[in-house]
């Protein structure tokens, strides 16, 4: 790659300046503020604060509500990621192999991607709420579905809403990844292996690993952070706080409960968790991904 490099000193800072200013104002100063909040204990209106060491962290870890939220967030991350990626991959493979009507299927399967999480939650209440829900009566007769009392039913409710939105996002990325696989490789594998099922798992899927890795990060981020809109409009952490995610709990504590110290501590713990997950992914999984 031929690169022309200029060496003037001031012009380069002029180019970088807008983004640097925006990032410092909107990202780094709030991070410093969060650290300050997490290590102090404040009165509810912010008039005074005293340094409190690790008290907020100690309080957070000994709070049973927090541990319940942690458990729910981890379960949601695994279930929603796995389900939405599996279904997205299934639909993408079928849409890649269909002969007639490819673009019609593509267009119609993408629509949920454009819907904001809060609206997804609202649509889910149209299905599952007791008064208006279409499926509520059906499920209630089948096994006594009652998401306000039974945590497993509430899990099902939230997982269906969260997965529904991500299936179309995964579908479009998997389809793009499948279409970028070269035809010669597929034709060569047709000679070697008769069973299309084995062909998929030994040839096509390893070639999809960059897309899968990218989607894994996107899905984990979604399950951690973007499901706030869904939970806020569907269950509000309903059966005794069983469906609160970490983000939702820190939102409730910080903005509605006005306990900025605990919310700050929870935010820092969340940041560390996501950092650990990303480092883990980059170290162990990125080695197996072959970029060409």
């Amino acid at each position, binding site marked *: 790659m031929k690169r022309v490099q200029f060496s003037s000193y001031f012009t380069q800072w002029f180019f970088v300046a807008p983004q640097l200013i925006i990032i410092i104002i909107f990202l780094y100063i709030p991070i410093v503020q969060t650290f300050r909040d997490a290590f102090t204990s404040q009165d509810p209106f912010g008039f005074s604060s005293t340094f409190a060491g690790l008290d907020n962290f100690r309080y957070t870890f000994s709070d049973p509500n927090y541990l319940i939220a942690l458990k729910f967030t981890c379960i949601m991350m695994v279930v929603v990621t796995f389900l939405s990626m599996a279904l997205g991959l299934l*639909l993408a493979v079928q849409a890649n192999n269909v002969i007639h009507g490819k673009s019609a299927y593509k267009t119609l399967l993408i629509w949920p991607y454009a819907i904001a999480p809060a609206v997804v939650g609202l649509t889910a209440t149209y299905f599952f709420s007791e008064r208006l829900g279409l499926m509520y009566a059906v499920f209630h007769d089948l096994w006594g579905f009652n998401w306000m009392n039974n945590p497993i039913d509430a899990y099902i409710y939230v997982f269906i809403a969260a997965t529904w939105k991500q299936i179309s996002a995964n579908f479009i990325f998997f389809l793009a990844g499948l279409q970028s696989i070269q035809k010669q490789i597929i034709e060569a594998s047709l000679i070697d292996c008769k069973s299309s099922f084995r062909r998929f798992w030994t040839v096509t899927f390893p070639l999809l690993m960059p897309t899968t890795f990218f989607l894994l990060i996107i899905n984990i981020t979604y399950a951690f952070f973007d499901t706030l809109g869904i939970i806020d409009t569907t269950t509000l952490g309903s059966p005794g706080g069983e469906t609160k995610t970490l983000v939702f709990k820190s939102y409730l504590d910080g903005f509605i409960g006005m306990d900025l110290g605990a919310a700050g501590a929870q935010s820092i713990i969340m940041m560390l968790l996501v950092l650990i997950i990303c480092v883990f992914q980059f170290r162990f999984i990125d080695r197996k991904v072959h970029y060409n």
Partner: protein
Amino acid sequence: MSVNFSQILIHLILVLGLLLMIIPIWMTFASSTHDNSTILSEGMQMGLGNHFIENYYRVLNIKSGFFEGISASSMFINSFIMAFGIATLTVLTSIMTAYAIVYFKFKFAVPIFWIFF
């Protein structure tokens, strides 16, 4: 004949996925064409009613909501301005920074990259 069968299977799976994706959207749209009392008494509808024009006119033009202050068409305009502005500004600032990192002999190129990443 076996090629035909596998194509039928593919179409079947795709149609099932399609139904899963589209039914909530269709139900929301179909319910929006009904009267308020119909929905309260019978639940969400799957068929089209005949209150389409009235409902959409009310939503788009009559100020309603929590403080009786805004109509949906104003919200549309707000969203459009925000989305357009945010997209444009994001692309502009990112292009400028990326250009600077690539085309200038930058002593702090790597730290700047990791700050933004």
